[in-house]
């Protein structure tokens, strides 16, 4: 008999929800891409080929306009619209990323070689800013773990330190008379956090290379942490044995920790982290939505922190 009864159908034969949702999302992504490529682009945005990823969310994307015009990138000023207005002055070619410290194969990658030699994926991630707003962004990039494996960290390496370009002449926010942060911007991850499959080195968004204001040509995306962990315009990645300094932690240690995991139960000392506003949702009449533990990525990352007091190690 050819027609099987429902009970005979193996669960594995049914299209998993994830794949089914991804198909829908790929359609919207493709539609977005078609629109994006049809529009004339200001900078030299180049299309990127990327595979879909099961780690992507199917939530409604934040518009490209909002993703690329509402940014925190203090090297270009503290206003949300400063990066979009001023980041054009950053020269992203040529660009090299230096890998050093406790690695078997220290290297200096030209950005185009790094992109060419990596398997790019589209990752649609939620992004939660420590200021209490969030976006859903279709990044294009590759897992940081892929790069880490290539350079073969030594057993002594416990942390990964990152550094943003230090170019006051191209970054007008750096020579402000009120220095907001100590430059260059630095960030860090524990090696196991860096190796987590969610941790991404993004080189694009919305199917194209990154606009400067979003951290061109290469930036970190750690979706379960507050946005400031996602260091932009990276020039150096070092493998070290001690917890590296991080910019916001140096600026206000009681407010911004090394871990900076999204956590609705641990408030910023000056404001609540229990809820967030999703950018582009409702305009003037935006409704707050509850913030999720680890920004909704608890399933993939909660085990990294078992036994840790997240109130102390915020």
């Amino acid at each position, binding site marked *: 008999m050819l027609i099987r009864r429902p009970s005979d159908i193996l669960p594995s034969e049914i299209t998993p929800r994830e794949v089914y949702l991804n198909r829908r999302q790929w359609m919207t992504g493709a539609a977005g891409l078609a629109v994006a490529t049809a529009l004339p682009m200001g900078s030299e945005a180049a299309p990127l080929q990327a595979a879909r990823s099961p780690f992507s969310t199917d939530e409604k994307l934040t518009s490209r306009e909002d993703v690329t*015009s*509402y940014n925190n990138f203090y090297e270009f000023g503290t206003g949300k619209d400063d990066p979009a207005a001023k980041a054009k002055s950053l020269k992203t070619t040529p660009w090299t990323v230096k890998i050093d410290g406790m690695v078997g194969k220290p290297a200096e990658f030209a950005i185009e070689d790094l992109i060419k030699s990596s398997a790019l994926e589209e990752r649609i991630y939620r992004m939660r800013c420590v200021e209490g707003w969030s976006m859903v962004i279709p990044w294009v990039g590759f897992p940081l773990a892929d790069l880490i494996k290539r350079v073969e960290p030594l057993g002594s390496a416990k942390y990964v330190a990152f550094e943003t370009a230090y170019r006051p002449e191209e970054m007008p926010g750096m020579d402000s008379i009120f220095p907001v942060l100590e430059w260059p911007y630095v960030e860090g991850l524990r090696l196991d956090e860096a190796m987590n499959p969610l941790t991404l080195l993004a080189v694009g968004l919305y199917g194209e290379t990154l606009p400067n204001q979003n951290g061109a040509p290469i930036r970190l995306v750690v979706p379960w942490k507050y946005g400031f962990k996602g260091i932009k315009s990276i020039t150096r990645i070092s493998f070290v044995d001690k917890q590296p300094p991080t910019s916001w932690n140096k*600026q206000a240690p009681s407010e911004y920790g090394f871990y900076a995991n999204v956590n609705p139960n641990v408030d910023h000392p*000056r*404001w*609540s982290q229990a809820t967030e506003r999703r950018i582009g949702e409702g305009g003037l*009449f935006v409704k707050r939505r509850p913030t999720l533990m680890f920004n909704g990525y608890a399933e993939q990352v909660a085990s990294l922190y078992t036994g840790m007091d997240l109130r102390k190690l915020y």
Partner: protein
Amino acid sequence: MAGRASASGAPKGFTLPQVPKILVYIVGFIPAVWLFYAGITDQLGADPMRVLEQELGEWALRFLIATLTITPLRQLFSINLLRYRRAIGLLAFYYAALHLTTYLVLDQGLDMAAIVADIVKRPYITIGMATFVVLVPLAVTSNNAAIRHMGGQAWAKLHRLVYVAAIGAVLHFILVVKSWPPEPLVYAAIVAVLLGYRLVRSLVKKPSPRRRPA
């Protein structure tokens, strides 16, 4: 709103052409009308609620600072804008009220539990609320009947609370931002200069009891 009630009134020095006070209100409300219009028609960028909330607060602070410049302008440069001070002070209050309303309704969606928690736990909200509370009696008594009823001296004394409000407003601004961006610091410096001027003047020039305002 602060300082001495109009006593001298002598037409000395610089005289500016007088405009009807209603014009001050009309011009003063242009930013608010524009902000609401721009917010509803999606012209305030990616996070319109936050822009509206912050801009209304900033305008309240600007008008508060403007009222504090009236006395030094008169004393130092003989520019007399006293007749507009009440309108400017009331504009500061109206903008503070709009700023607070935006926070309560649009930002917090009238979630009373969240609002009360904010007031109790967040110093910048506590200070912001207290600043608004301080402005209320000043706005309520910003009319001739109140001055008559209270007597000029008591009225002037009460209206010195505007100094407290100005300090509260800049503190509120500084505490809401990350790190030390220039804008709130610039406002803080302006308020410091305007209040410092009064302090220095009161120390240097011992007030003679006879020249008290009537």
